[in-house]
């Protein structure tokens, strides 16, 4: 219980840091802290593969891309936030978030599902367990996701392909 509490505090502090940080780079770093805390939480559940995948994919790849963009965009810029269009957004969002979170916590504590009582399944979150899930019962979802991601990647290729020369000439004539 003690390790869980420490990690929960770290994760929540990281999440708060993301929205409260003044500098975008600081926000990104807090998010990295949050992701690492989650990874250690997975380790506590003995889901070692999930933990490592979390670090490799989120902390090692996605957040590096975030940082890449953030450092590129905010380089040498003075931070001056534009005035908000709708006043009181932050307060409303904060109160709503606390309300929803509290309601979920009360429901989860009062009505634990049958799966919580049953404990962790065998091979939960390790290499064998995830492998059996992905290539066994969840194979259809895996394929669906793969096709979706491939479509996104192909879409980028199509949108960014170099324009054909005749096409360019045609457009120029139109503009003229």
């Amino acid at each position, binding site marked *: 219980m003690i390790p869980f509490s420490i990690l929960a505090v770290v994760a929540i502090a990281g999440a708060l840091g993301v929205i409260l940080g003044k*500098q975008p*780079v600081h926000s990104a770093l807090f998010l990295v802290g949050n992701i690492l805390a989650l990874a250690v939480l997975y380790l506590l559940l003995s889901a070692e*593969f999930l933990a*490592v995948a979390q670090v490799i994919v989120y902390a090692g790849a996605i957040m*590096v891309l975030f940082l890449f963009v953030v450092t590129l965009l905010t380089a040498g810029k003075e931070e001056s936030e534009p005035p908000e269009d709708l006043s009181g957004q932050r307060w409303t969002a904060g109160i709503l978030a606390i309300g929803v979170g509290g309601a979920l916590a009360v429901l989860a504590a009062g009505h634990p599902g049958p799966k919580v009582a049953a404990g962790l399944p065998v091979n939960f979150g390790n290499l064998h367990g995830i492998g059996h899930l992905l290539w066994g019962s969840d194979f259809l979802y895996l394929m669906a996701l793969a096709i979706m991601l491939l479509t996104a990647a192909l879409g980028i290729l199509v949108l960014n392909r170099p324009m054909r020369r005749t096409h360019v000439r045609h457009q120029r004539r139109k503009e003229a």
Partner: protein
Amino acid sequence: MISTILLIIKILVLIGILMGGFAYTTLVERRLLGFFQLRLGPNRVGPQGLLQPLADGLKMALKEDLMPLGADPIVYRMAPVFSLFAALSVDAVIPFGAPIHIFGQSVSLDIANPSIGLLIAFAFSSLGIYGIVLGGWASQNKYSLLGGIRASAQMISYELAMGLSVLGVLMMAGTANLENIVLAQRTQGWFFIPQIVPFVIYFITAIAETNRTPFDLPEAESELVAGYHTEYSGIRFAMFFMAEYINVLTVSGLAVTLFFGGWLGPSFLPPILWFVIKVAVFVFAFIWIRATFPRFRYDKLMSFGWKVLLPISFIYFLGTAAFVSGLL
């Protein structure tokens, strides 16, 4: 209790060995670069310059720790620490030798032997990029920033090919545990023979991951002064320096473990010595390549990573999968 003490001793010894390895790798590199370039290299401090690393270390420790005026203080100070932490932690899972017997106890030489050791090594090494990017950003210097941005783009691109290149070994050994990968090579032969193409790709991407010539664009001194560590001085610069050389030792150790049978070898030498010899050969190759090749142009570097290394490693990966599963 005893196991905890043993673990702490092992961690301290490993850090000591890595620091010593770092210090003398720099000396070997400077001497070898001297010979490659028909000059002597540092040979004044002590016999054959053997005390040069000590003198350098003392100089680095005593130098003033400067920080630019507009720098982000916390991130600037923490960036080299991140780098060194990531570099050191990868070595925790590398098996350096067969278990040895002291005082009637069997002691394994690696600090941890998790069942997914290879993935943990990759997870930690993927965190090393943060030190470089944050150091470049926090310095508030155009050259540093460019170095950091280049590093992130380069390492993301080459990490994919690197990950794909080791999957073949993973499938052939049937395990992600580094010790079992070594033991599998005792029966199947060293994996660099069936996996020669992935090995070459691993080696190229390893040079790129450690930011060494010809992939040293993040610190290209002819265009970016010193890239991400331009503003750093004293012990914090030394930490970046240590991280780079310890990364060289680490990727060499992983290459030996995955492709060259780890500590395996004829029995006239102890296993750990075989491991050290193989790593030393790799370190020599790193230095040799640095002395030989000019730096890549940036767009060529990116297109080489994405259009050459990634497709080849992917095709070889699929081929290995078909072979291992018995389709071929």
